[in-house]
């Protein structure tokens, strides 16, 4: 899933030249009828709800040690996810940990979208030596596996939550900008862009109004699948101990802590993993569903 960028690109590329549906209400209706979109949205909303109201839905605090003697206690009605390696409530910690992992992923996504789209759009609209050079650089970077690339950037920037976030964001830029570039090049030569130029519109206006609007749908689909990758890589960095430090709850870090005890206490590792899994799964379902919904909108015409 993580390295399936090609497949993803192929799927999203089917939406080239296919703008977001004209009538928002019909696109919305189709979305509501699509099983995978609804599954993705509901699962995601559920996890986000748990994460945001983590400390309200459970009476246990994520920091309080209930009893060191009860470490690795199995799940019970009182502690539905059980207790962790030093006897803290695992449900409270797992749900609270989502805040860090998810906000890291969101911030890195934002970095990737802003820079990836700008690089792709500008280099796609203005062909030339600079544009080719930038795209070749992006090609080279996208041949490096993303985890490796993130570790590289994280090593350069130094460990820590914000540095890892930036590193993950930078890692996502090459493939996204490559994708946006391809879409832009295809639209650039289309007749309505030539017509817009014939009307004397400025390049910035043409890029924002005429090009971006028409490639928004495939970008949306691509970015949704990319968000899943972001969460995976962020958790991975946490697992390797590059991002958050103990005792900050973070999914990757918690998986790492539980992994050592997996033989006798499965729950300490499984529950945080489940959260990552569900989040990634819901995003992938959402991405697939959106692609179908937006594609079908085109075929209906």
């Amino acid at each position, binding site marked *: 899933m993580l390295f399936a960028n090609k497949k993803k690109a192929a799927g999203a590329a089917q939406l080239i030249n296919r*703008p*977001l549906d*004209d009538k928002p209400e019909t696109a919305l209706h189709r979305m509501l009828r699509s099983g995978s979109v609804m599954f993705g949205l509901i699962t995601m909303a559920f996890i986000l709800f748990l994460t945001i109201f983590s400390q309200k839905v459970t009476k246990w605090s994520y920091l309080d040690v209930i009893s060191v003697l009860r470490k690795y206690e199995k799940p019970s009605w009182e502690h539905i996810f059980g207790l962790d390696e030093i006897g803290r409530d695992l449900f409270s910690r797992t749900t609270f940990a989502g805040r860090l992992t998810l906000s890291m992923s969101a911030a890195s996504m934002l970095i990737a979208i802003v820079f990836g789209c700008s690089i792709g759009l500008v280099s796609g609209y203005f062909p030339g030596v600079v544009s080719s050079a930038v795209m070749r650089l992006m090609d080279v970077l996208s041949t490096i596996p993303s985890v490796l690339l993130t570790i590289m950037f994280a090593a350069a920037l130094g460990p820590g939550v914000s540095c890892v976030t930036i590193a993950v964001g930078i890692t996502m830029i090459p493939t996204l900008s490559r994708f946006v570039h391809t879409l832009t090049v295809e639209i*650039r*030569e*289309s*007749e*309505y862009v*030539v*017509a*817009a*130029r*014939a*009307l*004397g*519109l*400025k390049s910035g*206006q043409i890029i924002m*109004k*005429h090009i971006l*609007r*028409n490639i*928004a749908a495939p970008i949306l689909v691509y970015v949704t699948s990319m968000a899943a990758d972001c969460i995976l890589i962020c958790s991975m960095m946490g697992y390797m101990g590059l991002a958050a430090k103990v005792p900050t709850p973070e999914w990757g870090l918690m998986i790492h802590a539980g992994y050592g005890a997996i033989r006798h206490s499965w729950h300490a590792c499984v529950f945080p993993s489940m959260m990552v899994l569900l989040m990634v799964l819901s995003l992938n379902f959402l991405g697939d569903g959106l692609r179908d919904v937006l594609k079908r909108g085109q075929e209906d*015409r």
Partner: protein
Amino acid sequence: MENVNPSSPLLSVRGLTVTYKGVTASDTVRAVDSIDYDVYPGQIMGIVGESGCGKSTQAYALIGLLGGAASVNKGSVKFDGHELLSMSRPELEDIRGARIGMIFQDPMSSLNPAMTVGDQLIEPLMRHKGFTRSDAADAAVQMLTRVGIADASRCMRRYPHELSGGMLQRAMISMAVLCKPDLLIADEPTTALDVTAQAGILELLKELKEELGLAIIFITHNFGVVAEICTHVSVMYAGRIVEKGPAHDIFHSPAHQYTRAMLHAIPRIDSVKGARLEPVPGAPINPRHPPEGCSFHPRCPVCVDNCSKLRPEERVIDGSGHSVCCWNYNVKEVSENA
């Protein structure tokens, strides 16, 4: 428009040459080969020729819309005294849409499918005239009504795929003339339409020409359309203008063999029933290896020695501006034919 002197040409093209670069030097194609013509205010200049003769390419070159491998090699394009080819991009952007409008062949694909017709119509007004959104929308509704769209304000809210080709072409035309340009370049505006819609569009263009004092460059491969609308005609073959002059002269006393052959190949309402049309003999030239001399000589029925060696110069036929590029032309023959 008010400040344009009607006795001097609005657009003056001299020696315009456009090439498409290939991968190797031998792939380079000279699509437009040093063409000259003038357009005066109030004229409708028809540029006629077969597919690939460079008629659209030269129009794109005029206002710097060439993309990809095509580039202008030499020549000059003077618009109302300003040299367009040496202008910077911002200067050219200020002229495009404001003083030179352009309409395209296929209105379906020349409008952005993701924007409403209205949003696209008001763009040039806001861009060039500094109109506010609502002022621009009012002007756009007026113009749409003027070009014959019944329910203009509803049309403004429609997306291109919801309108018919004829309506879209009307919307395109109103977009091109909203800023009251002096020159309108129409690149085969009726080719994608059926005959009824075509007649309507031609009528509209004629009316707009009178109302706004437009000069129009009308690019087409259809002599029938030319006869309908144009005051002047330039016939292009293989990147060159082979004959030009007032439309009446071109139709009644064509001087170039290519023009004659083309006119013979069109069905006429007064032709004898069952009579066969005469196709132009031969095939269009390979633009990578254009023939020496006159590019029409391999297909020309009256080819003489010079034709395959030297490129014919432009010869003036009479004072009305009728001229031809042909070695074999003589005044007497034409007047006999006429």
